């Protein structure tokens, strides 16, 4: 067989594999790690799932900032458990991503070097206790809107991880809203603290749902693979429509003079988002980008001798089943 014939035959083979793959997705069947998949599908999923995992891990930092200062034992335990859940989410997601042929170390390397992105919202500082409420209510709220559709995405391990993640996120959101509710039923000082947190977290939360549709480069392909079911702008509208009445119940004012219910569309109209700020933070120039990456790099670097010790010990004690399992 000549080279030309060989290539043609391979192209046909992969063409038919691609047809099978596309048909599976169209039938809403899951793609599993050992199934054939186009290289672009694999790469896109590695990018998205690892970014998602990184967001969970970096997301531990702004809330972790308040564990030692939580105002009551009950709140301290709840916050600690919440941040621990985020570590757990990171773990499921890194594991799901590893099934695509990338190691956790490689993903960490991409995070630590700044090559991989994570959700920009975590580059904002947590300045008061009310930020723990606002993050739960708004940031987890926006995350749920982003993530619920992923429970039925086409890649099996990702979809299954997301089912667990979403259950916990919805608990976190209620917890955050309950913190806000307690503050808003409290003293004037507490209400002011809640309003201030809403003022600072509102716009970054809207940006969290991603750039506008005309600027979003991945949307079309992602919709096809069911990595996305709605566009960024649709998700953002859904978030606003859902959140405004919740703010009303709290007696808080959304910091947007143009926010107004539109009887014709049945949705809230809202003001202009400062996309310059969004891109500035994405490009690494947000208030805490450097601190967040520094914290992750330090944890990793300071832990190197610990991980080396665990490996060295396991190698010396290969006969010990319990040790092999533990590492």
């Amino acid at each position, binding site marked *: 067989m000549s080279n030309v014939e060989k290539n043609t035959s391979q192209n046909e083979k992969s063409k038919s594999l691609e047809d099978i793959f596309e048909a599976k997705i169209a039938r809403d069947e899951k793609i599993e790690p050992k199934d054939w998949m186009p290289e672009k599908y694999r790469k896109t999923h590695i990018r998205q799932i690892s970014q998602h995992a990184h967001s969970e891990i970096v997301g531990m930092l702004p809330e972790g900032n308040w564990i*030692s200062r939580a105002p009551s034992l009950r709140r301290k*335990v709840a916050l600690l458990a919440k941040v*621990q859940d985020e570590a757990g989410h990171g*773990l499921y997601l890194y594991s799901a991503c590893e099934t695509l042929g990338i190691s956790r170390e490689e993903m960490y390397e991409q995070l630590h070097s700044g090559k991989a992105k994570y959700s920009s919202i975590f580059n904002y500082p947590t300045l008061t206790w009310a930020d723990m409420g606002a993050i739960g209510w708004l940031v987890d709220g926006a995350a749920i809107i982003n993530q619920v559709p992923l429970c039925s995405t086409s890649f099996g391990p990702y979809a299954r991880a997301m089912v667990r993640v979403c259950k916990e996120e919805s608990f976190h959101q209620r917890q955050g809203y309950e913190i806000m509710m307690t503050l808003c039923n409290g*003293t004037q000082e*507490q209400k002011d603290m809640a309003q201030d947190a809403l003022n600072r977290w509102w716009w970054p939360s809207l940006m969290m749902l991603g750039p506008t549709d005309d600027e979003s480069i991945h949307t079309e392909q992602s919709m096809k693979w069911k990595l996305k079911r709605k566009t960024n702008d649709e998700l953002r509208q859904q978030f606003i429509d859902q959140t405004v009445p919740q703010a009303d119940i709290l007696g808080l004012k959304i910091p947007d003079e143009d926010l107004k219910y539109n009887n014709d569309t049945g949705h809230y109209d809202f003001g202009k988002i400062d996309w310059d700020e969004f891109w500035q933070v994405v490009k690494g120039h947000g208030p805490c980008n450097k601190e967040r990456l520094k914290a992750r790099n330090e944890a990793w670097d300071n832990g*190197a001798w610990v991980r080396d*010790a*665990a490996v060295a010990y396991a190698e010396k004690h290969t006969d010990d089943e319990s040790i092999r399992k533990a590492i």
Partner: protein
Amino acid sequence: MTNENLIHYIHSIADNSLILGQRLSELCGHGPTLETDIAMTNIALDLFGQTRSYFQYAAELSNEDLTEDDIAFLRKERDYKNVLLVEQPNTDFAYIIVRQYFFDVYHYLLLKQLENSKNVNLQNIAKKSLKEVAYHRRFSGDWLKRLGDGTEESHERVQKAINDLWVYTDELFHMNEDDKIVANAGFGVDNSSLKDEYYQIISDLIKQATLEVPEIQYFQKGGKKGIHTEHMGYILSEMQYMQLAYPNMKW
């Protein structure tokens, strides 16, 4: 034995859990691996859970209208009766593990005795906590072995942590006046009775981890009497920040 004696006794047990929990929770998000991060957070959660059970009971016993948070957040430094060991800083993972193991073995032995308390509340808290602490002890003990018999660097680091923290172990077995009264009444534990078994257990594990048991004879003390190390003021100023900055509010 008065209610006051019993309340002080409960505080001193719970303060160990509270302050060690506080130290561990500083680490959340900064562990050497995700798995150890999750495990250490679990230990902190267990310790805070125990603290809450003790303080809720102490609040019930009190004649004043107190809550668990009043006890946790509104006392002065001298009124915290935790041992000096648990307030030691998170210098590195070796110190964290050694501090944990030194405390866990003591904690386990204490709770095993406290299960036999004549006081049913303390019995119940001890029973529940013992299951958790058995896990803590396994976690810290396993890591001590890994670090001791791991690499040259880990061996050196963990030996240094053992040498530095050893001086805080003797205080675990000290008894202040309240401890003695409550132990005599059959409600509390005679800590001094735990000492021989404690040193036997930790020395065996240290040797198994290819490390050396320090021959230090001078020990530090003070926590049981409310005289702490310089670290304690900083721990409290962080922990009490909200309650002091915004007094008399509900959170």
